[in-house]
């Protein structure tokens, strides 16, 4: 097996440069690449294009990159939880491309799967259809959407092995597997890194072929965005 292990987040992201296009896994603050984001803040590349379902919050996740003015353009489906984003966007300092969540997921999946374009019904009749090709199939209208790929994908899994195989946990899976396949260089961080051969091949969610670098993160905060509990 091919060994993808690197020492730490800093080593993993050392060649992310100004103007890089990044995919960042996670939904809200769930399943985000905490350690890679932290290392990226230290490295401080500018003019990044970040593709992520959300923009994080002001002091966690992608929001940290926004706050440090490292992001030129954001491609996302929902950015409602981030005031810093709103400020920069209103000031014209940040580009935004909003994509329906399912279309975003499918465009990234297409990028990884070598499908340059596909048709989807989502967005027909809406502002987001403007300028896009519309075609009818079996009496229904669909939009043509293109694949999304990136220079780097930063993803987070629960367990991983040195061959790059990944297993996610709960709803922290979300965009991570699709992004793994759509990054030219995919950097996976895991809570537990084991030698190749210790994960059951039948339970692997992301095959190692999609992962170029893997490291075990030190400490995961896993911040909860909205605490909701049932009475005891």
């Amino acid at each position, binding site marked *: 097996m091919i060994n993808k292990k690197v020492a730490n987040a800093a080593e993993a992201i050392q060649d992310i440069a100004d103007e890089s296009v990044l995919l960042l896994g996670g939904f809200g603050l769930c399943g985000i690449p905490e350690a890679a984001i932290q290392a990226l803040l230290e490295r401080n590349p500018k003019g990044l294009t970040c593709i992520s379902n959300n923009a994080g919050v002001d002091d966690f996740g992608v929001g940290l990159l926004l706050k440090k003015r490292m992001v030129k353009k954001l491609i996302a489906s929902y950015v409602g939880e981030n005031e810093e984003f709103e400020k920069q966007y209103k000031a014209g300092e940040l580009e935004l491309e909003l994509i*329906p969540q*399912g279309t975003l997921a499918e465009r990234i999946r297409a990028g990884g799967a070598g499908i340059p374009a596909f048709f989807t019904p*989502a967005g027909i009749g809406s502002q987001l259809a403007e300028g896009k090709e519309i075609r009818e199939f079996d009496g229904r209208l669909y939009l043509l959407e293109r694949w999304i790929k990136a220079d780097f994908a930063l993803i987070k899994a629960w367990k991983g092995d040195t061959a790059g195989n990944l297993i996610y946990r709960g709803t922290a899976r*979300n965009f*991570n597997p699709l992004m793994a396949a759509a990054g030219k260089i995919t950097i996976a961080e895991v809570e537990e890194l084991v030698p190749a051969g210790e994960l059951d091949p039948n339970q692997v969610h992301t095959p190692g072929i999609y992962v170029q670098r893997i490291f075990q993160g030190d400490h995961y905060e896993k911040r909860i965005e909205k605490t909701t509990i049932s009475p*005891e």
Partner: protein
Amino acid sequence: MLTKEQIAQRIAREIKDGQYINLGIGIPTLVANYIPSHLQVVLQSENGLLGIGPYPKQADMDPDLVNAGKETISMVRGSSLFDSAEAFAMIRGGHIDVAILGALELSENGDISNWKISSSLIKGVGGALDLVASNAKLFVAMRHCHKDGSSKLKKQCKFPVTGLRCVHKIFTDLGVFSILPEGGFKLVEKAPGVDLDEIRQKTEGRLVIKGEIPEMTGFAK
């Protein structure tokens, strides 16, 4: 006039045995609390879960388990987890039977607006456009009017449209409405204590009231 909880209670009566359901953020999320326990239904969360359970006990709270509103949740027995592409493949592919969403506005031909972007308000689109474009039966839960008193049931949507001719049934604080094939909001039921004139007055689009309109009853206190 119904409370948010009562709107949710009323929608829950539409749920049928064996359905897969996606609940949007806001009033739709409350519907889960009122689904009769004898019904076998499954709630989907578009961030990657089939089988949403109740909010967890404090001790069971898990940051790796949230719903589409980013709230901590639990899973029922028989759940399954998957990625976002699969979650929307389910939606787009017509596997979800019912989607319950909020809305900013509706038009009398069944168009829906449930997101907007402007210099003064940026939130995003989330999964709403995928849901309204799916083959799911679309139920809308919302207040009948905006805060300024203007009607959300319009001739045409003023806000950007999210989906065309896709709404099946509308549940507001004033009543339940269906969309007529030729266009128009057909009043199906009215909320307790609401008179028809109020509904007429607060509905901007074409309103159709035919025959005796039953009044909703039986809300849990």
